[in-house]
C-alpha cells in the first residue's frame, strides 16, 4: 500500500519538469484540435502520433499519446455542440442537448458544461486507474493460457454484441479481425499461414497500417462522400460553468462514476457506449426527462462525463491484462509494445513503476483539457473553419506517412489503402470497425493461448472448461452468444421472471 503510494508520488514528480509538461500540453492540444475536426478519430490521432514519436523515449512518447487520447475525445464535443456533428463517435450523445443549447444562444455555456464534465469524468477515472490496475495486474498473474484464450474470445464476443445495432454484423467483423490476425508467420513454429506464397504477407498485416486504414482513410472517404458541409453556430456567451451546474456535475460523478469506469473495463465497449449508457442512466433518474434531447444540462453533462471516465477504464485492462478496452486503447497498447513495454500480467514485475507513470500522465492530460477547454476556446474554434476539401487530402497524406513509418514498407501503405476502402464500404452497410480491430489485436493472443493450452494439456480441451477462472469466462462468453438466440432469450426471461415472482410472493407473505 505504502510502496504503491510512494511509486505514485514518484510518478507525479517525474512528470513535473519542463520537457514532460511541454510534451503533455502539446499532446493534449493536438488531440483537442484533431477531436474538433469532424471525421478524425482518437484512434487515427494516436496511430499517427505513434509514428511521429517513434524515436522519443518510451515515457515521453506514451505521455504524448495519452494526452492526445484524452484531448481528442474532449475536443469532439466542440463539433457536437457547434455543428451538430460528433467530432468523434464518443461525442454523438452530446449532439442533441449540446447543439440545442447552442441554437438557444448558449453555446459557451454548453462548452463550459462539457469541459467541466469531461474534467471531472476523467479525474474520477484516474482515481480508479490508480486503485484498480495494480490489483487487477496481481490477479491476472494467476491466469494461464486457458484463461487468456477465454478472455480474448470474450473480448471479441462482447465487442460484437454491444457495438452497433446488429450483433451478427459485430461478430462477423470480430471474426474477420481474428482471421486477418492469423495472416503471416505464426508465433510458435514460424510457418506461413494464408500467405499464398507471397513473401510480403509473411510479416503479417501490421496493426498500425490496419488501424490507420480502418479509422483514417475510411474517415477521409466518409467525410468527402457527404455532399453537405455544415455551418457552425456562433458562440457569444461565457464558458465558465455556473455554481449550480458545478454542484450537479459532482453529484452526477458520485452517482454514475463507478459504472462508467466499469463500462470501460469491458473489452471492445468503446467510449461511445460509455457516453450513451451514462446518458440513459441520467435520463432514467432525471426529474426533467422531457428536456433530454432538447438542451438538457444533465443530458450533456452525463454524455461528456460518461465518455471521458471510460478512457481510464479502457486503459486498465490494456495495462493489467494486455486486453484493450477500445480501439484507441488498442493503438496505445501497440505503441507501448513498440517502445519495449509489454502490457499484461508481467507488467507489474518487469515495469512496476510504469502503471503509476500512466496514472500521472492521465492526470496531466485531465488538467490540460481543463486549461485549454476554459481558456483557449476562441482560437480553437478557428480550426472548425478549415474547409474539408483542404483538410482531408492532408489527412490522407498523414495516413500514408503513418502507415509507412513504423516498418518502412511500401506494402504497409497498400494494406492501409485496401483496408481503408474495405472499411469505408463496410461502414456504409452498418458493419462497425471496433470489433474488427479487437479481433485483430486479440487474434495473436487467442491463437497462442489456444495452442499453448493444447500443448500443455497434451491435446485435451478439458482444462479449458474445468479450471475455476476458465469456467467463469467460458460461461459468460457462451451466455453472451446464446442470449442472441430468441428461444434461449425467452427461456431465460421466463426463468428470471418466475424467480422474481416467487421472491415477490415470499416478501409479500412476510410483510
Amino acid at each position, binding site marked *: 500500500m505504502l510502496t504503491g503510494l510512494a511509486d505514485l508520488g514518484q510518478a507525479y514528480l517525474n512528470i513535473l519538469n519542463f520537457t514532460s509538461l511541454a510534451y503533455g500540453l502539446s499532446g493534449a492540444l493536438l488531440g483537442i484540435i484533431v477531436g474538433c475536426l469532424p471525421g478524425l478519430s482518437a484512434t487515427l490521432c494516436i496511430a499517427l502520433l505513434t*509514428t*511521429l514519436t517513434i524515436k522519443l523515449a518510451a515515457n515521453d512518447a506514451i505521455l504524448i499519446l495519452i494526452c492526445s487520447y484524452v484531448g481528442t475525445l474532449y475536443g469532439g464535443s466542440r463539433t457536437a455542440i457547434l455543428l451538430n456533428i460528433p467530432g468523434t463517435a464518443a461525442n454523438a450523445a452530446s449532439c442533441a442537448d449540446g447543439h440545442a443549447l447552442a441554437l438557444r444562444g448558449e453555446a459557451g455555456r454548453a462548452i463550459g458544461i462539457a469541459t467541466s464534465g469531461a474534467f471531472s469524468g476523467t479525474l474520477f477515472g484516474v482515481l480508479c486507474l490508480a486503485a484498480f490496475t495494480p490489483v487487477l495486474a496481481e490477479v491476472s498473474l494467476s491466469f494461464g493460457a486457458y484463461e487468456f484464450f477465454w478472455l480474448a474470445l470474450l473480448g471479441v464476443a462482447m465487442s460484437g454484441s454491444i457495438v452497433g445495432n446488429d450483433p451478427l454484423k459485430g461478430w462477423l467483423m470480430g471474426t474477420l479481425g481474428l482471421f486477418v490476425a492469423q495472416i503471416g508467420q505464426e508465433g510458435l513454429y514460424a510457418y506461413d499461414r494464408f500467405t499464398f506464397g507471397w513473401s510480403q504477407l509473411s510479416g503479417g498485416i501490421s496493426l498500425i497500417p490496419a488501424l490507420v486504414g480502418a479509422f483514417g*482513410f475510411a474517415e477521409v472517404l466518409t467525410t468527402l462522400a457527404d455532399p453537405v458541409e455544415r455551418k457552425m453556430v456562433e458562440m457569444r456567451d461565457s464558458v465558465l460553468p455556473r455554481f449550480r451546474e458545478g454542484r450537479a456535475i459532482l453529484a452526477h460523478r458520485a452517482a454514475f462514476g463507478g459504472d462508467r469506469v466499469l463500462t470501460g473495463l469491458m473489452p471492445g465497449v468503446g467510449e461511445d457506449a460509455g457516453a450513451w449508457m451514462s446518458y440513459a442512466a441520467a435520463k432514467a433518474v432525471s426529474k426533467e426527462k422531457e428536456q433530454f434531447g432538447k438542451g438538457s444540462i444533465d443530458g450533456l453533462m452525463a454524455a461528456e462525463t460518461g465518455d471521458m471516465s471510460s478512457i481510464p477504464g479502457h486503459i486498465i485492462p490494456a495495462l493489467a491484462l494486455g486486453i484493450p478496452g477500445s480501439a484507441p486503447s488498442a493503438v496505445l497498447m501497440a505503441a507501448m509494445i513498440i517502445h519495449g513495454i509489454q502490457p499484461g500480467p508481467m507488467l507489474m514485475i518487469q515495469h512496476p513503476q510504469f502503471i503509476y507513470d500512466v496514472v500521472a500522465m492521465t492526470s496531466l492530460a485531465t488538467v490540460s483539457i481543463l486549461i485549454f477547454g476554459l481558456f483557449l476556446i476562441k482560437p480553437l474554434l478557428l480550426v472548425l473553419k478549415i474547409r474539408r*476539401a483542404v483538410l482531408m487530402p492532408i489527412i*490522407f*497524406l498523414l495516413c*500514408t506517412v503513418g502507415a509507412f513509418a513504423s516498418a*518502412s514498407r511500401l506494402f504497409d501503405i497498400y494494406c492501409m489503402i485496401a483496408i481503408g476502402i474495405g472499411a469505408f464500404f463496410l461502414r456504409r452497410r452498418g458493419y462497425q470497425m471496433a470489433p474488427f480491430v479487437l479481433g485483430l489485436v486479440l487474434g495473436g493472443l487467442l491463437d497462442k493461448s489456444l495452442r499453448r493450452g493444447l500443448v500443455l494439456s497434451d491435446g485435451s480441451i478439458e482444462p479449458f472448461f474445468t479450471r475455476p477462472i476458465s469456467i467463469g469466462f467460458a460461461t459468460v462468453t457462451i451466455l453472451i452468444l446464446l442470449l442472441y438466440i430468441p428461444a434461449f432469450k425467452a427461456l431465460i426471461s421466463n426463468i428470471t421472471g418466475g424467480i422474481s415472482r416467487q421472491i415477490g410472493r415470499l416478501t409479500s407473505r412476510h410483510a
Partner: protein
Amino acid sequence: MTILGALLAARSWRPGLLASARGGDAAARRAERRQILLVLALCLIFGVLLVGHSLPFWLAAAIFVSVAIVALQSRQRQATGQKLSLRGIATAAAIGLGAGIVITIVFQEIFLVRLP
C-alpha cells in the same frame, strides 16, 4: 465467418430485395458515387503510383494535395454553378507545396521518421 455470413444472408433475404435496394434519389446517389470515385482515384494514384517510386516525397505530396484541393473544390463550385478562379488554383498549389515541405521537415528532420 461462413456461418455468420450465411445467417446474415438468410435473415436479409426477402422477395423483391434487389428492386428495393435500387430505390431512392437516383441523381443524389449518382453524384455521391462520382465524388467517391474521384476521391478513390486521387488517393490510389498518390498511394500506389506517386509514393515510393523515385519521386521525392515532398514533391509527390505537393502534387497530390494541390490536385486534390482543385478537383474537390471545383466539384463543389460546379454544384453551385461557379467556376474555380486562377487565384483558387494558386492557393491550392501553395497549400500543397506548404503541406509537402512542412510534413517532410517535421517527420524527417525533427522527429527522424523515415518517409516513403
